[in-house]
């Protein structure tokens, strides 16, 4: 192999790895705060990407209606839960979040969607839609069982993955879609050509990591989220609602997923079920990071991306096999290094 090919593969690997890093970070974040292993992360990717691609052709994606429908269900759940003390303020707040918000997003989407809508508006709309879906997914599928074991949460997670994937098929069809690139600029350094798209991937990944670091290190809400992850009871005792922390974690995860999707849909064709595999690679990175360490996850994601790039060059049929095999030695090492821990009941 010559150096040029190696550099190309490395560049490709790092571009993919950056996306996996974003997804891995979101997984670690959600797990730390809610103990949910977020399998539907991949659906956030596809929903973001394909909503954006559909909006680019001037159509209104079905995800906007899904957000509305989920909002109605969430509103029903809120009312049912508060049935013993239905104070007007509580109802008004639930209405604003669960009905007014998705209705506004739906109206905006219908109002703005068209063949000539600028790319920035389409991106904003897709992000809004997927963020709302993420928020309501937590409310509907996870908040009612937030106190149960990791295993029960995982089952709910797999269930919501399957449901959302099925809905994805309904909304976007079996055909793959591609979206327009964020920028067509290109930059050549030596033998390497950097497209505007891949630069956007690097830039946004770094920006997101810095933003998350600032959020968790310096804002009260970020610290509250960390506190929930460190000590759930302690957090409740100072008045931090674990449901609020969960909602914010899911909101961030769905935003990160949607952004990742929008970043890759101009590079590769995405199908309704592609997100799962992409999310799974983020998951491998998160597992290598032990589902706790953000920096380790980011580094592992770059490794996963590079391994994937090299194996698709040398043994493209076994690309996924090689990538997923990475997880085995990590699991063996981790289980040898860590003493057996009984799952804590809380």
């Amino acid at each position: 192999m010559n150096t040029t090919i190696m550099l190309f593969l490395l560049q490709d690997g790092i571009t993919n790895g950056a996306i996996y890093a974003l997804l891995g970070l979101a997984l670690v974040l959600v797990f730390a705060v809610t103990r949910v292993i977020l399998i539907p992360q991949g659906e956030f990717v596809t929903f973001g990407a394909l909503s954006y691609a559909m909006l680019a052709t001037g159509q209104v994606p079905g995800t906007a209606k899904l957000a509305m429908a989920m909002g109605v269900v969430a509103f029903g759940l809120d009312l049912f839960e508060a049935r013993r003390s239905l104070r007007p303020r509580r109802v008004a707040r639930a209405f604003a979040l669960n009905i007014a918000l998705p209705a506004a997003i739906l109206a905006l989407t219908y109002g703005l969607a068209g063949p000539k809508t600028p790319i920035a508006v389409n991106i904003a709309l897709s992000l809004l839609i997927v963020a709302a879906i993420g928020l309501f997914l937590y409310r509907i599928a996870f908040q009612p069982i937030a106190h149960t074991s990791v295993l029960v949460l995982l089952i709910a997670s797999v269930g919501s993955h399957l449901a959302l994937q099925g809905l994805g098929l309904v909304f976007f069809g079996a055909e793959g879609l591609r979206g327009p690139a964020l920028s067509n600029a290109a930059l050549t350094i030596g033998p390497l050509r950097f497209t505007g798209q891949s630069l956007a991937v690097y830039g946004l990944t770094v920006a997101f990591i810095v933003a998350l670091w600032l959020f968790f290190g310096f804002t009260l809400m970020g610290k509250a989220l960390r506190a929930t992850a460190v000590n759930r009871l302690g957090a409740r005792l100072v008045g931090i609602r674990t449901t609020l922390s969960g909602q914010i974690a899911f909101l961030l995860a769905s935003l990160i997923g949607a952004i990742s999707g929008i970043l890759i849909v101009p590079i590769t064709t995405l199908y309704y079920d592609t997100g799962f595999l992409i999310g799974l690679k983020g998951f491998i990175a998160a597992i290598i990071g032990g589902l706790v360490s953000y920096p380790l996850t980011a580094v592992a994601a770059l490794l996963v991306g590079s391994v994937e790039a090299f194996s698709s060059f040398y043994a493209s049929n076994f690309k996924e096999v090689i990538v997923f095999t990475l997880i085995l030695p990590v699991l063996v090492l981790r289980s040898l290094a860590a003493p057996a821990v009984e799952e804590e009941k809380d």
Partner: protein
Amino acid sequence: MSALLSVSDAHVSYGKVEAVRSVSLEVADDEIVTIIGANGAGKTTLLNAIMGVLPLKGATAFAGTDMTPLDIEDRVAAGLCLVPEHRELFGTMNVEDNLQLGAFRIPKATAARSFERVYTLFPRLKERRKQLAGTLSGGEQQMLAMGRALMGAPKLLMLDEPSLGLAPIIVADIFRTIGELRAAGVSVLLVEQNAQAALKIADRAYVMELGEFILSGSAKDIASNQRVAASYLGFQHEGASGI
């Protein structure tokens, strides 16, 4: 004087086992009330249930409002705060962050004043403010747990075994601070095994045995009660048979 906290006919069970039976208690404004009793009497269970950590059967009212439908978080917002037995600090975060989160439910301007107050009460915390909570000594952790609770400017502070596992000199310090809280307008409900120290600073006391209150009264009366003296204070009155 209306009661700040009133609990009547409270029952708390773990499954079929009833750990607290038909307990009623009151704490008035600016009052220090203590519940003393042996290990396993149900004191911690009772405090956790008042806070909402465990389900309680019976009526609880705080500052005139019924607390039954409220979550832990709402009770915190209403001014009720628990320093639990295991402290439940945020171990991987520093002292300052722990304190800041204690003021999660109150406005920022008030939080700045709370910081000053807590640092005056516990100067040690100010020295250690950049240190991770998990690396503090036991006494410092207890101070931090109390400091974090006070950051939220509670009306009633419930303390669960603040002296547990601490050196006597630190225990004295902690109890002195609890006494000072009254002057700051904070009522205290104190659960202690160290009955002697608790009765010294308290206004009133309840004695708990096997999930029930067997005695209540002013701290002075309780301290001079023969049975209490024999079981909890470790000395015997005249006439009682020696060992």
